[in-house]
């Protein structure tokens, strides 16, 4: 529609688009900026944009006061752990479904998807009680299991759509050349599957990192990740905005970077291949 624009119109539209984009991004920008202010400046009216004393003390204080790294470590362990366990289960499953499909493969895939549609409150009570009785509440192991199972359908689906795109002719060709099955897998299939597996991992880490239903309900201290740590700022004492902003900036930065790299895969993973 804008193809036959004048250069001036083009510039005008670009400026408009950038204003809209920056408005959407503003809360994140403001959070990062506030993390460098003192607590007094953070609540000052009118708000200061550049002319304040830039300080890093909030970052130091977040660590000193509340042992930020323990929560960050939990987030890393939970998201990476659940992703690795997930791959262990999902790769063989997706592989079999893509290369040895049976009549029931489609049904199995859709059934897996349907488990993802289940609202977590529907199983909150039994899971909570089982966790309590088995001593799994507030353990990393328990939470890794929950996060892994929660995202397993997405992993299988995403890997399946990637594996589907590997041409099976290439297997025939390798077989003709005398490749055995293990060789076939290691030298022919695996290199072609690596990009798909990598993007599945990234998406899964994002989802597990940001998960805030189970992590809030099943942890209190020992296994609590950053979602729960940030939630503890909801009932604070005294001025806390800069510290909240510093903690938040640290909590979202890694995932924002991973997310920016995997935006295309996100569409595939979250729409189950329905939009390409």
């Amino acid at each position: 529609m804008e193809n036959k624009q004048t250069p001036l119109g083009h510039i005008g539209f670009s400026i408009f688009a950038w204003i809209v984009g920056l408005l959407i991004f503003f809360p994140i920008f403001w959070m990062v900026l506030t993390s460098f202010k003192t607590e007094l400046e953070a609540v000052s009216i009118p708000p200061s944009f550049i002319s304040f004393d830039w300080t890093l003390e909030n970052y130091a204080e977040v660590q000193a006061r509340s042992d930020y790294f323990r929560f960050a470590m939990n987030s890393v362990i939970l998201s990476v752990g659940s992703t690795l366990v997930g791959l262990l289960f999902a790769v063989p499953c997706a592989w079999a479904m893509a290369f040895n499909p049976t009549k029931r493969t489609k049904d199995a895939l859709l059934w897996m998807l349907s488990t993802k549609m289940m609202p977590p409150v529907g199983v909150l009570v039994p899971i909570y009680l089982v966790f309590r009785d088995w001593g799994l509440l507030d353990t990393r192991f328990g939470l890794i299991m929950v996060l892994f199972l929660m995202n397993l359908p997405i992993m299988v689906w995403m890997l399946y759509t990637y594996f589907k795109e590997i041409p099976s002719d290439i297997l025939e060709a390798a077989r003709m050349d005398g490749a055995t099955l293990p060789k076939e897998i290691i030298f022919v299939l695996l290199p072609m599957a690596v990009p798909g597996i990598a993007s599945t991992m990234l998406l899964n880490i994002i989802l597990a990192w940001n998960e805030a239903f189970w992590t809030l309900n099943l942890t209190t201290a020992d296994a609590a990740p950053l979602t729960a740590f940030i939630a503890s700022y909801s009932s604070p004492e005294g001025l806390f905005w800069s510290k909240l902003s510093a903690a938040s900036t640290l909590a979202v930065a890694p995932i924002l970077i991973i997310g920016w790299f995997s935006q295309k895969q996100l569409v595939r993973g979250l729409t189950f291949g329905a939009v390409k």
Partner: protein
Amino acid sequence: MSTRSSTLTGRIMSAPSIIALFLWMIVPLGMTIYFSFLRYNLLSPGMEEWVGTLNYEFFLTDPAFFASLANTLLLVGSVLVITVVGGVLLGLMLDQPIFGRGILRLLVIAPFFIMPTVNALVWKNLLMHPVSGMFAWIANSLGFQSIDWFSEAPLTAIIIMVSWQWLPFAVLILLTALQSLDRDQKEAAQMDGAGPVSIFFYITLPHLSRAITVVVLIETIFLLTVFAEIFVTTGGGPGLATTNIAFLVYTQALLQYDVGGASAGGIVAVVLANIVAIFLIRLIGKNLDR
């Protein structure tokens, strides 16, 4: 190429995932259904007894249920309208040639990667605080009264936060769909003298209909159980003003220890979600065949 032995290998390879998911979903769901027919309170252990549909009667006739159902529908509906309309407009915008389009796109989709607890607390304090928040300052400097969002319009505040989070999701998917639109078709219509408005309504929008359906269905499933945003900002209040079904079930289970009642509520939530899920699964299933 599926032989008998390869079928068997296939079964062995996919069995662990299927069994794990079965144990994770179907077994607890069965337990929830069972609990929902019991009088079962964690504060009085050993007193469980079968009460038939009493929990459902209590839950479904509880004024809190109607309030939370209304809140749930209002929340889901408003966020859907905002994100789909906004998503189409932003998608169209980002589909144009713009200086630094790649970077601009990164900025627009960034909110989706922000964890829900951060989203909620940053909005509640830095932006919506009635005295020191950004919005209050803007309102005051324009000569308006500032709004105390979380006491005057708590549900609206939640809707704004959740919409901000999900808008990028809609943009990403609709933009992906827009980019697969056939340019020739558009050019042909232009040659025939169609204006931008009629091109949008007769070519672009029909092309997007499928992607919009997917966005609506997937968002609905996630939005039905919005939890963290409510948990860290309003705690369901004031009163019941921001309690949705998911939060109501949570308060019954983990704050009032009423396992039976919470289970009945959980099953109601499952039924609501399934109404949407059936449509989504059918749509995706059709896509699998192609």
